Every structure is written in C-alpha cells, then in structure tokens.
C-alpha cells in the first residue's frame, strides 16, 4: 500500500505549491503527510473503546453491512485491531528509518557508537515528533478519553498525554510544589523602624545589645522548649517575664516557669491569658508571697480574692491592673482581713468597683499603707479624697480620677497628710488652682515627685509662689504637662498668665535645678524665649537632668536646644515635638533629640562630637 502511495506521490498532478515542491526536493511528500495524519486520526478513533462502532465501520475497511455491524463487531474487533497495530508498527518503522537518514540524526549520532544507542535515539526523535501539537485531538493515556491537546496538557509518566482532569489528579498526587519561604521580618526597613520606636521608648543605645538581652530574646523565642528556668537569680527571671509578656506569651503553661516556691514576689506583666485558676495556682505554689503585681489581670475575680484572703499569705504590695471584674464588696472584705500588712496598694483601670467605700476601709484596716495609687478610676469622688486624707502613714499618693474634685478637697487633704508626702501625683485635674499650689507650698516638706497635669486654672504667679522660698528639698521629678491657658477666642494672648509660664519656670529651676532628673513641660506654651535662654544660660548647670520634655513650647529655638544640651551634661533625651523654631541642631554624641519636624526624621541620635 505504501509503495502505491509513493508512486502516486511522484506523479505530476498539475500546479504544486512552493512548499510542496520544496518538500519534494527533500524527498518528503506533502500527500504522504496528509495521508499519515488521516491514518493517525482513524487509528485514534478506533482506539476509543466506546466511541460507537458505527463510526468505525464507516471510516475503516468495512466488512459487514451496518445492520449486522453490532453482531459482528466483537468478532471483527480483535482482527482489525491486530491488522491496525501491524500497520501502525510498519509506519513507525518507516518514519524511524527516515529519521535515521536525516541530517539532524547523523549529527547527533556522531557522539554515539553503539548501534543500540542509535536505535534508542531514533525512537526518541520519533516520539518527539509524533507528540500531538496543541489544538489536535488525542486520547488520554490514563482514562483513554478523547480530548483537545493544549500547551498545558500534562504528559503521563510512561509516555502519552493526559486530559485535563487526569492531569489535575497527577498534580495532586505529586508533592505540592514548595512555597517560597516567607521573608524574614526585620529587614532594613523593619529594623530602622524598630530603632525609631526604641528611641521614642527611651531604650535606644548605640552598639550591640547586651549578651543577657540576646539570650533572653532567644529564650523567649523558644519558650515552648523550656521546662524549667533552673535557679536563676530573681532579677533575671523578672527580665524574662517582661520579655515574654511583651510578646503575650505568658499563659497557663509558661506561668509555672515563674512560680518559685521560695520567692517573695510574682510580677505578671501581662496576665490577659491567665484564668482564675491560674491566679489561684500562684497562691498555692508560692506560699511566701509578699509582692504581687498583675497587669491585665482580667480574670482576677472575686473567687481569686476569696482564695487569697483565705490563705496565710499576707501581701505587702498589691498592684492590680485591669481587674475590673472584682466587686467592691470583695475589695472591702479582703482589705478588712489582710490590710494589716499592706504597705503599697496600686489599682489601675478598675472601672466602678473600686470607689469611695473601699477607700473608707483603708484608714482602719491598713495602718501601714505608704503608697496608694488609684488610676483611671471612674468611681472615686470628693468623698474618697476625704477618706484618703485620713491615711496618716501615706508617703506616696497618686491619683488619676475621672470625677473632677473641687480644689478645696485637695487643699484639705494636703493640710492633713501633706507634710509626709514624698510623691504627689494628680493627673488630669482640670480644676486644680492656685489654692492647691499654696497648700503644697505651706505643707509639703519632703516632696520629691510632683505631678499636676491638664490644669488651666493655675497661674504663673501661683507656681512662682510655690517654688520661691519653699523649704522643701529639691524635687527630683516634675511633670506639669499641659498646665496652660486654653481659650479658643484668644489662643495667642495670655493676659492673666494662666498656666506654667516664664517666671514659674525660672523659679522652679532655681529651686530644684540641682536635683531634677526628669522634667516634663509638655505644652507649657507660654514660657518665653528669654526665660529659656536665662534658665539654660552659660553659667547654669543641671547635673542630674536626664530627661527633658519641652514639646509644644513654641518659643524654643535651635539656640535653646543647644544650650539645654550644654547646661544638662547628663541629658539623655530631649523631646521637642511641635517646636517649630527648632530647625537644624547639632546633637552631641550619645544624646537623643526627638520630634524635629524635618526630613532627617523625627529622631536624631547624636553623632556630633562636642569638642567644637
């Protein structure tokens, strides 16, 4: 049959296309190709198991009439299949021989000597060329269904192509392709941001971290491997606890690492993940507990307080933050039973359940209370202030109340307990006025830390009177944030000198300049340039000052910032947010200037050597 075809191909049959002519010169027949393709298509149809025998009968050499086709099909099937296979094999052989004769094959053959290799190569080339092109129909190698070949069709492991569903199955069977490894954070940008954040936190330093810090960070990353911290010293355990809390890693399991039966203190910096039973476990494990600090102790509930009161633990320090499920009656009960030993009581964010009634219990039940802090409290009122005034043993008082108390309340309180106070912190007291300042002047003698914030009633004269000829030792910590005039009608003028202004600033520095370590004048915007220049004058030295905050003091200039760095040799960081006249300052090495609004960034870590 093929010989006949060959012969017919050689016959001249009228005009030929250029391609056919060209192929003919290379001994390739276009007709042959067409016939081959038809034969392949036919063969493919025959291979299809249930494609309908009628179709087969029409296209192939039919022996029977359509009527008997069904009956005959089983008997003719195998015979025809054998004949077809024979035919196919012959054709393959022919093409392979053609390939063997081709130039491409000759070229590649040169590298091989063996005749078997030669055959393999020829077969490979044949299979390569025989693979159906995209767009053609092909039978799937697995399910034998007919499908259209696309560039995306997968090849079966043992030759042939796969239809789309089978290809997908194959993909799933194969190991899922590896995902790109996640980029490790802390790259250039991340680290830079971290540095900026550290500067704002005041924990920034040049150079490498301490070995201890590095180890603790590694430990915190692998805390799930730790069984026991061994007998590390208390201060190291505390550091680890802080680090873990920072990453919210303190839970029921890791809590046990920090419970040492012989310890006298348990500081939990983040108890958000601890349950009531965890808190009870603290008291079970550490019977010698004296100092307890719990931040975010949401589940420090009545039952925990009950348990604590029932044990033989007598706390000296209690610091509770966010325990707003504790009821007022439970507070009173606990203080009545265990208040005797209490020296320090600090309560933060407890909404309404820590109020005047609890403070009223303190006088009788806590005779040795030295430190009292009530912060973010919505319940304590003027009545509570009167109760605090009865606590003769108090040395440190810190209040941040939501209820505004009339200044008279503070005045009478200072009259009673002011003489002993070392710390007086009144945050967000909008109504505090000069009478309170005068009371401080008249009563306080051992004050070290003073905070009065957000008051727009106090005046420059009031502060000046407070600091001038005050027989109190020098203050160490002063925070007068936002003590300034607030009048939207006349935002610029301050005819009555409301707030902490120039004279008060001079008086404060004259009184406490030598001892001050921390000074916050955030938003005291009526301090004049002359006052700053005088305070940070050439002959003035403030040896202790480490942290100075003069943000939103509008008159601060480059010169004042430079003078401040010179006058305060131990200054570590200076905040100048919103000081628009600060433009280009040279910051001495090791010092930090925060908040300059320029392109260099919010933070300038000094690298300039000050040997001018």
């Amino acid at each position, binding site marked *: 049959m093929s010989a006949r075809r060959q012969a017919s191909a050689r016959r001249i049959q009228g005009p030929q296309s250029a391609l056919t002519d060209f192929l003919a010169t290379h001994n390739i027949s276009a007709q042959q190709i067409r016939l081959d393709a038809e034969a392949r298509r036919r063969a493919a149809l025959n291979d299809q198991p249930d494609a309908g025998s009628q179709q087969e009968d029409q296209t192939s050499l039919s022996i029977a009439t359509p009527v008997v086709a069904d009956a005959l099909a089983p008997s003719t099937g195998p015979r025809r299949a054998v004949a077809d296979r024979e035919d196919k094999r012959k054709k393959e052989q022919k093409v392979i021989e053609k390939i063997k004769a081709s130039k491409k094959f000759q070229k590649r053959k040169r590298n091989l000597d063996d005749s078997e290799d030669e055959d393999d190569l020829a077969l490979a080339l044949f299979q390569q060329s025989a693979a159906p092109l995209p767009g053609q129909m092909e039978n799937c190698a697995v399910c034998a269904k007919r499908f259209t070949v696309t560039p995306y069709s997968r090849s079966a492991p043992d030759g042939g192509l796969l239809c789309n569903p089978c290809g997908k199955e194959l993909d799933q069977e194969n190991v899922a392709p590896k995902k790109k490894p996640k980029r490790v954070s802390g790259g250039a940008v991340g680290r830079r941001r971290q540095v900026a954040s550290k500067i704002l936190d005041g924990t920034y*330093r040049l*150079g*490498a971290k*301490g*070995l*201890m810090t*590095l*180890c603790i960070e590694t430990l915190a990353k*692998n805390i799930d491997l730790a069984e026991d911290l061994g007998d590390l010293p208390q201060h190291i355990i505390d550091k680890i606890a802080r680090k873990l809390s920072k990453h919210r890693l303190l839970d029921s399991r890791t809590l046990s690492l920090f419970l040492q039966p012989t310890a006298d203190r348990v500081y939990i910096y983040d108890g958000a993940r601890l349950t009531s039973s965890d808190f009870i476990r603290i008291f079970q494990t550490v019977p010698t507990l004296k100092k307890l600090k719990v931040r975010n102790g949401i589940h420090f509930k009545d039952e925990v307080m009950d348990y604590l009161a029932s044990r033989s633990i007598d706390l000296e320090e209690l610091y509770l933050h966010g325990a707003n499920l504790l009821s007022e009656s439970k507070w009173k009960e606990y203080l009545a039973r265990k208040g005797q030993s209490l020296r320090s009581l600090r309560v933060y964010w407890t909404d309404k359940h820590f109020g005047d009634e609890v403070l009223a219990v303190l006088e009788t039940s806590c005779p040795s209370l030295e430190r009292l802090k009530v912060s973010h409290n919505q319940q304590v009122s003027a009545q509570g202030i009167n109760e605090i005034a009865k606590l003769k043993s108090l040395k440190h008082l810190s209040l941040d109340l939501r209820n505004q108390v009339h200044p008279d309340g503070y005045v009478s309180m200072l009259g009673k307990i002011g003489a002993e106070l070392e710390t007086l912190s009144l945050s967000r007291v909008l109504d505090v006025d000069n009478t309170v300042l005068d009371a401080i002047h008249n009563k306080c003698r051992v004050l070290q830390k003073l905070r009065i914030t957000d008051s727009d009633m106090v005046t420059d004269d009031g502060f000046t009177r407070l600091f001038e000829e005050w027989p109190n030792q020098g203050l160490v910590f002063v925070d007068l944030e936002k003590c300034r005039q607030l009048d939207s009608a006349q935002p610029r003028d301050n005819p009555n000198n409301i707030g902490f202004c120039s004279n008060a600033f001079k008086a404060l520095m004259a009184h406490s300049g030598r001892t001050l370590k921390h000074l916050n004048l955030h938003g005291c915007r009526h301090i004049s340039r002359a006052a700053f220049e005088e305070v940070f004058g050439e002959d003035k030295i403030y040896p202790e000052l480490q942290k100075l905050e003069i943000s939103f003091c509008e008159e601060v200039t480059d010169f004042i910032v430079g003078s401040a760095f010179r006058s305060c040799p131990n200054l570590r960081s200076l905040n100048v947010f919103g000081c628009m006249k600060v433009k280009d300052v040279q910051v001495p090495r090791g010092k930090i200037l925060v908040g300059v609004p320029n392109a260099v960034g919010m933070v300038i870590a000094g690298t300039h050597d000050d040997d001018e």
Partner: protein
Amino acid sequence: MASKYITLISGDGYEFVVLREAAMISPTITGMLRNQFAEAKTGRCLFPEINGVILGKVVEYFNYYHKNRDKEDVLDMEIPVDLCLVLIEVADFFGLDEQQS
C-alpha cells in the same frame, strides 16, 4: 604597659586570647584586671566554673560587641538555643547586662 591582649582560661583548660579593650566591657573582668590582683599582673584570668564552649561563646560576644560598639542597627548575634539558659547565668556573672555595660 600591659599587653593589648589578655588570656581567658576556662575550667576545662581552653585558653582564649582576647583584645583587652573588648573584654573590658565586662565589669567583672575590669575588676579582675584592676589593682594588684594576680590576674592584673599576668593578664591571665581563670574561670574554673565555666566550661570551654560557654567561655568561647562569651569571647565571641566580646569581639562582636567590640566590632559593633559605635554602629547603629546591629545584627543580633546568634545564640544557640541549648546554651541559652547557661549563657544567661554566665552573662549575669560577667555583668553583660545593658544597664551595667
């Protein structure tokens, strides 16, 4: 004038020669090299309760710290997880804490 280098000797006999300036970040070593202690004369400090592996890590840290002393954005040194707890103790012994250094 004493040598620029000092020798740290571990309990199991390993000796590490370190730049004196680098080792001086540890207040403990500074203390040993001050005054007229034997260590100050010979420049050899013996740490009988610290083994070679740990001391080697500490020496590595001295050099790492010294190299990065004035740089910003310092890459953290790798700490092997299994040595972590022992190193914490040793770091405490050498006073390699941030507040102190």
